């Protein structure tokens, strides 16, 4: 009996010894043999390095109160392909509403994580909520909201990672986004929501808000007028600019048709263009104002000089054929510009020869304005080294040169400022170059202003006139290039000018492209648009 008892005791003792030995062996494995692995695992669960961006800064208009871009949280939908509870239901749902995601899911079944759609639209949110599928989960991401949709082509948008994609959002991406703060956390491993210790490694800088020179009310009003004109003439597109020539500030900059920056996915990228800066065209007879300015400055023509315009629609100038819209006989130089006679201006341009090219460069054509807007076009002026016999004639009435609407506005600002140039300004807080020496003589400026005023009073820009205000404007109708040839059916209609009253000045430039109705000329399409934009601007600025 005692012997059995002893054997049992020894057996139990040995079993316990064995158990302790196993424990000790395990401890040895964990603490010594695999210590590096477990230390690393613990470190990963406990210590986390986090980089965190500050909220993207807002964009305001010139009042500094009206936001043009705000932050907002967006919902994104995702699935965990490896852990789908109802894979068939999910696939059917995706096939109907998100076919591209369903395609991705088919090819990447073994992925741990997959976005169904980032930054869902309201309709997509509703569809997902209605489906009530547990496998489709939602998470919040940062996004942007744009209260003034018609400023879309200027403001631009951000991509799915909230970085500037185009427009001001891209131009000022660094300033708006700031730099991320980097810190390490001793995280609570269980919940992952809290931490014990937080240590900053690199201090982040918050994004700085941007104030634009745009006036959001005026932007809306000008956009409305532009859209009306495009509809009325069944035109393809249009754009307009309103500038204060005294400061160079751009008060309105619109393009139409435009896009909804709050519902960007699937947008036709053509509609996202800021057509006033990123597209350059041959604007036609608008250039006559600048050719006349050059001729007056160089003293090769006088306002009252009589010029024989041939009395027909087609004449040969130095052996080159020149066409004009209406036949005129002898006209004064002022009337040549007022009535937009191609023959008259070509005769004067011949006297200028290569100097005309220098004057166009002096007015800011053929180079960027310095506004630094992404995608700005410098335009082009055919240089004298590449001229044919036709070139000087073409350049005098706006062919063989392309420019943006902003460059035309800048040149008109120089006229409004009596020869002193000014750099256009879109960011309110930036400093700009202010010229101390004029580009042109005051006397020349007075004459060209008189000619442009006459153009509004009795010339082709009659419909741009406003009673009680001094309006100095010029129109231009230009054929568009189609497959390397000028098409008489496809035109671009432009009107540019200055509106003045008691020290108040505004430069307005507007264009409409490809009007589909008959009798469409700049005088009938663009000049009335100019007049409406000017009226809206004057009422808005309370200059009555």
């Amino acid at each position, binding site marked *: 009996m005692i012997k059995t008892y002893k054997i049992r005791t020894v057996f139990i003792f040995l079993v316990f010894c064995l158990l302790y030995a196993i424990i000790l062996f395990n401890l040895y494995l964990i603490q010594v043999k695999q210590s590096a692995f477990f230390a690393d695992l613990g470190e990963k669960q406990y210590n986390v390095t986090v980089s965190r961006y500050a909220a993207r800064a807002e964009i305001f208009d010139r009042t500094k109160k009206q936001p043009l871009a*705000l932050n907002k949280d967006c919902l994104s939908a995702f699935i965990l392909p490896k852990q789908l509870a109802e894979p068939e239901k999910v696939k059917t749902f995706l096939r109907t509403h998100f076919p591209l995601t369903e395609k991705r899911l088919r090819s990447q079944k073994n992925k741990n994580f997959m976005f169904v759609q980032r930054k869902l639209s309201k309709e997509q949110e509703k569809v997902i909520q209605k489906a009530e599928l547990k496998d489709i989960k939602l998470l919040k991401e940062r996004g942007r909201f744009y209260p*003034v949709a018609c400023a879309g082509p200027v403001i631009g948008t951000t991509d799915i990672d909230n970085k500037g994609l185009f427009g001001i959002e891209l131009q000022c991406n660094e300033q708006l986004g700031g730099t991320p703060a980097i810190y390490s956390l001793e995280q609570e491993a269980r919940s992952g929501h809290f931490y014990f210790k937080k240590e900053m490694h690199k201090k982040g800088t918050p994004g700085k808000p941007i104030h634009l020179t745009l006036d959001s009310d005026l932007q809306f009003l000008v956009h409305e007028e532009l859209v009306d004109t495009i509809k009325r003439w069944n035109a393809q597109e249009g754009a307009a600019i309103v500038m204060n020539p005294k400061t160079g500030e751009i008060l309105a900059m619109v393009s139409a048709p435009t896009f909804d920056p709050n519902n960007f996915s699937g947008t036709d990228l053509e509609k996202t263009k800021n057509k006033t800066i990123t597209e350059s065209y041959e604007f036609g007879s608008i250039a006559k104002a600048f050719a006349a300015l050059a001729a007056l400055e160089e003293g090769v023509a006088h306002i009252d000089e009589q010029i024989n315009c041939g009395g027909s629609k087609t004449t040969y100038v130095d052996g080159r054929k020149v066409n004009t819209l209406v036949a005129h006989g002898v006209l004064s130089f002022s009337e040549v510009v007022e009535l937009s006679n191609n023959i008259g201006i070509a005769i004067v341009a011949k006297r200028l020869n290569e100097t005309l090219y220098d004057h166009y460069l002096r007015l800011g054509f053929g180079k960027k304005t310095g506004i630094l807007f992404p995608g700005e076009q410098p335009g082009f002026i055919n240089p004298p080294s590449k001229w044919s016999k036709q070139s000087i004639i073409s350049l005098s009435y706006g062919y063989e040169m392309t420019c943006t609407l902003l460059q035309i506005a800048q040149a008109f600002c120089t006229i409004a400022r009596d020869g002193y140039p000014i750099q256009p300004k879109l960011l309110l807080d930036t400093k700009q170059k202010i010229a101390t020496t004029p580009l042109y003589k005051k006397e020349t400026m007075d004459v060209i202003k008189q000619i442009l005023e006459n153009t509004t009073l009795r010339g082709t820009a009659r419909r741009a006139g*406003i009673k009680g205000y001094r309006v100095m404007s010029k129109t231009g109708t230009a054929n568009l290039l189609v497959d390397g040839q000028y098409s008489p059916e496809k035109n671009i209609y432009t009107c540019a000018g200055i509106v003045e009253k008691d020290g108040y000045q505004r430069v307005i430039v507007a264009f409409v492209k490809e009007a589909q109705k008959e009798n469409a000329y700049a005088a009938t399409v663009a000049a009335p648009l100019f007049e409406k934009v000017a009226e809206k601007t004057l009422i808005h600025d309370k200059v009555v």
Partner: protein
Amino acid sequence: MKRPYFIVIFIVAHIFFIFFQIHKHSKVIKLSYKKQKSEQKKELLVQTIQDLKQQLYEMQKRSSIKKFAQEQLKMRKIKLSQINKIKIEPQ
């Protein structure tokens, strides 16, 4: 002082020190949790402000205001020629 008595005091003092150290640490963790909860609450409030701002500007859309003015208030677009400037002479 007798030697055993000194040892007891030494041990008790150490026990107290350890207790206070643990107490301090748990207090720090508690306050840290409180701080983090407040931070989360702040974030939530910031989000709410953003949502409300968005709603406000959505309602202040110029196209909606124009529609309301034209349809509900029967307002019409004004032309420059319709505006008269009235000078009021001081009496």
